[in-house]
């Protein structure tokens, strides 16, 4: 076979190559399809099971005892909002400031320790975090509380916030930092006035993803915020939450509570899903705007 004919489209070699290409492409397509099947399955199944019970009342009413029809999860919605609020109040300032330190001084002993610690922390099982919060808050206070639950969620959120912020800070062009310093701005001012605004969108995205993660956490709340069948906004009292309510309903032996569990699952899933979608849409819009 001469050089010129070897690559011709009619050759056996060429046909084989085309075939392998098609085969491999189909394989990757199949794998991608299999990967989305669980997601679609869960969404469809939960929606079909839960939608029957979801109504306006479900969002605004308190839970009813077994056998009493109606009732809702208003206390759990409010409780989750409060718990997530506490988690954000603790984790955002600490996480963002930590990220500034780590991004600026990655090679110092403390910087290395924090980076390693962040990785380890993100791998700690959430129930262990719950036990930790139980030990440091619940035991001394001698009661379950919203505060202890919020703290547990804050610890779980922290690595996400630190990582997202750090990644965004690293993307801020060094030019901007130098421009500010060359104008005589001190480092802290440069961080606050130039770095933070430039990284803000990433920080917001990171926080939203973190919230989406902790909003669905059950294990760390089992022995911290505990759960509460009534309205409560007090930080030193047990408080209801969506995942915990779902857990209680699901393990109960009652039929009507099972139905409520599905409905709660639907609400929780919709909440987490929309947080994720908003976070990603936000990033995409910002990127598109910066590109144009």
């Amino acid at each position, binding site marked *: 076979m001469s050089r010129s004919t070897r690559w011709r489209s009619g050759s056996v070699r060429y046909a084989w190559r085309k075939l392998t290409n098609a085969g491999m492409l189909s394989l990757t397509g199949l794998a991608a399809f299999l990967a989305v099947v669980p997601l679609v399955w869960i969404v469809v199944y939960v929606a079909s099971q839960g939608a029957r019970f979801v109504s306006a009342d479900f969002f605004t009413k308190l839970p009813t005892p077994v056998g009493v029809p109606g009732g809702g999860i208003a206390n759990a919605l409010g409780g989750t909002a409060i718990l997530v609020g506490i988690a954000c109040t603790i984790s955002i300032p600490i996480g963002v400031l930590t990220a500034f330190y780590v991004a600026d001084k990655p090679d110092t002993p403390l910087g290395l320790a924090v980076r390693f610690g962040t990785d380890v922390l993100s791998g700690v099982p959430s129930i262990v975090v719950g036990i930790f919060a139980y030990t440091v808050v619940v035991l001394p206070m001698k009661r379950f509380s919203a505060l202890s639950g919020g703290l547990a969620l804050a610890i779980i959120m922290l690595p996400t916030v630190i990582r997202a912020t750090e990644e965004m800070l690293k993307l801020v062009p060094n030019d901007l930092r130098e421009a500010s310093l*060359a104008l*005589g*701005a001190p480092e802290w001012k440069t961080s606050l006035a130039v770095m933070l605004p430039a990284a803000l969108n990433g920080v917001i995205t990171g926080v939203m993803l973190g919230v989406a993660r902790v909003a669905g956490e059950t294990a760390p709340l089992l022995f911290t915020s505990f759960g509460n069948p009534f309205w409560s906004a007090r930080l030193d009292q047990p408080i209801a939450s969506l995942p915990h309510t779902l857990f209680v309903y699901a393990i109960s032996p009652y039929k009507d509570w099972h139905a409520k569990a599905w409905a709660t699952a639907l609400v929780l899933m919709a909440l987490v899903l929309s947080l994720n979608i908003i976070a990603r849409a936000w990033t995409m819009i910002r990127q598109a705007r910066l590109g144009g």
Partner: protein
Amino acid sequence: MIGQLVHLVGLTSALPSPGQSSDPADDLVKIRVADLNVYYRSFRALADLSVEILERRITAFIGPSGCGKSTLLRTLNRMNDLVPGSRVEGRVNLDGGDIYGPGVDVVDVRRRVGMVFQRPNPFPKSIFDNVAYGPRLYGVRGRELEDLVEESLRRAALWDEVKGKLHRSALALSGGQQQRLCIARALAVEPEVILMDEPCSALDPIATLKIEDLMRQLAQEYTIVIVTHNMQQAARVSDYTAFLMMDEERTGRLIEYGTTQQIFTTPRDRRTEDYITGRFG
């Protein structure tokens, strides 16, 4: 602050325009670099370098890539402090005071010695906020701030192009406009010296010409130091030229320093001649 500006303008108008006076004896030394050695960890980037930068003149640092001309420039406002492992020996005197001396406020050094970078780097803020950034750090507010922003933009020859859209994003400006905005931003803190690190290398020829014209105007009031790869540019705009080269250890050394006219017409060193005639580099 404005009063100070007006005072400066009044003072400089009586002085001869740059280029007229080519006798170094007439000029005041603004920055005196003596026996400067700069290290990045164990690597010696600049060795035994001494040079005098004259007030209200444009001094160009030229030389092949890696010869340390940017390092030298960034030593003049202590921007090299930001590079981990960098170390400076020797003296850099600004109006007689060593900027590396004990108790010197880096922030104040950088206020007095402004800098314009290779790539235009406006903040992702409005045009106004970019220029106002520096003055705001020093507490300038309100009417005074607005006046200062306008004044700075006028000096940077940008006012007429942006006066109607001060609150639009600076990123919407063209590259040349962005670079003049960066110059305006540097001028707004009323520096005495302006360092320019290849300010035109990212710009097209017309924008380059505008910046060069601007530099000539600014040299009536400010001391300007420019690093350039472009020898024609050095010849066009500068009053004095320093030629740097690296030795076998890749350490930058000053080969020759003199008036631009002398360097480009009668270089004393063989290496300078080779470089400016394009035999290497």
